[in-house]
């Protein structure tokens, strides 16, 4: 699988996702700088977490107008897979590739906790195909603006079209280290898909749960299944 990680000034989870992908597939991802406008066709591009451009103006707003975005949009129209994690999700929203908005956490706190995600009944997508509906994975979040907000008609549309990838749930594994809907997002949404299922934006960080020393390996399991299904 050929993959790439888009890096902006202020991205800080780029190395983590590179390490995670290298654990799964022998071919190391290309590191793509935000000014890069020429790179080979890829199967997967990841926009990692962090604080691109210092979160100035709005989270992800300036990154979403970087030169690389045009190529990322071309990648999407070619049918390539695209994963935005945390700030990467905020960037995808700002580009308009995914709809809605990510606003300030309801409790005004930067929340860094484990969450339990429940896989939803979605359209065909490499990001959910490897899972049973209702299956739960434990993945940490770390953000200040992760409260997914959308007008009711859009929420209904996402729901009816099977474009809600996962929701925060209390789950069987719930304890005081786990946060349920840590940001107050509408309908407990933790991640959404594009109409073709090839683009996923998610607030939780799978690359931070790839080693038992992290406290869990569900992130590795999740990314492994995604990559298996992207390769086909």
């Amino acid at each position, binding site marked *: 699988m050929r993959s790439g990680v888009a890096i902006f000034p202020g991205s800080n989870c780029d190395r983590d996702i590179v390490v995670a992908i290298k654990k799964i597939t022998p071919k190391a991802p290309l590191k793509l700088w935000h000014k890069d406008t020429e790179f080979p066709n890829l199967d997967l591009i990841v926009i990692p977490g962090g604080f691109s451009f210092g979160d100035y103006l*709005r989270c992800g707003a*300036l990154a979403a107008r970087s030169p690389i975005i045009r190529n990322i949009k071309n990648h999407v129209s070619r049918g390539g897979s695209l994963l935005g994690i945390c700030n990467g999700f905020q960037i995808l929203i700002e580009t308009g590739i995914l709809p809605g908005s990510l606003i300030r956490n309801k409790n005004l706190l930067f929340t860094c906790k484990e969450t339990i995600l429940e896989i939803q009944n979605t359209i065909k997508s490499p990001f959910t195909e490897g899972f049973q509906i209702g299956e739960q994975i434990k993945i940490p979040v770390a953000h200040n603006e992760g409260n997914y907000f959308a007008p009711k008609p859009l929420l209904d549309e996402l729901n009816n079209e099977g474009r809600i990838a996962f929701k925060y749930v209390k789950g069987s594994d719930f304890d005081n280290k786990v946060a349920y809907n840590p940001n107050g997002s509408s309908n407990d949404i933790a991640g959404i898909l594009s109409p073709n299922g090839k683009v996923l934006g998610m607030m939780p960080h799978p690359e931070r749960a790839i080693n038992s020393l992290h406290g869990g390996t569900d992130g590795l399991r999740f990314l492994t299944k995604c990559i298996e299904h992207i390769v086909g």
Partner: protein
Amino acid sequence: MRAIVNISLKQGVLDPQGQAIQNSLSNLGFNNCNNVRTGKQIILDFQDNDEEQVFKETEKMCETLLVNTVIENYDIEIIKEI
């Protein structure tokens, strides 16, 4: 010529910052105020002195970058003499 863009959250969009400010105001004894909404202001200076042109350009800037029109409203004020 100067353009001032005032950006506010649309009605119905949660403004936790505004709520927190209101709580603090009420703790200080300001009980008359029952709702606080926050926003931001962006000030742009132009060489150009054509009011219509500056307004149009600012509007385009708002739509392409400055404002998230999903959750925010904006208005533009033009000041001829800075």
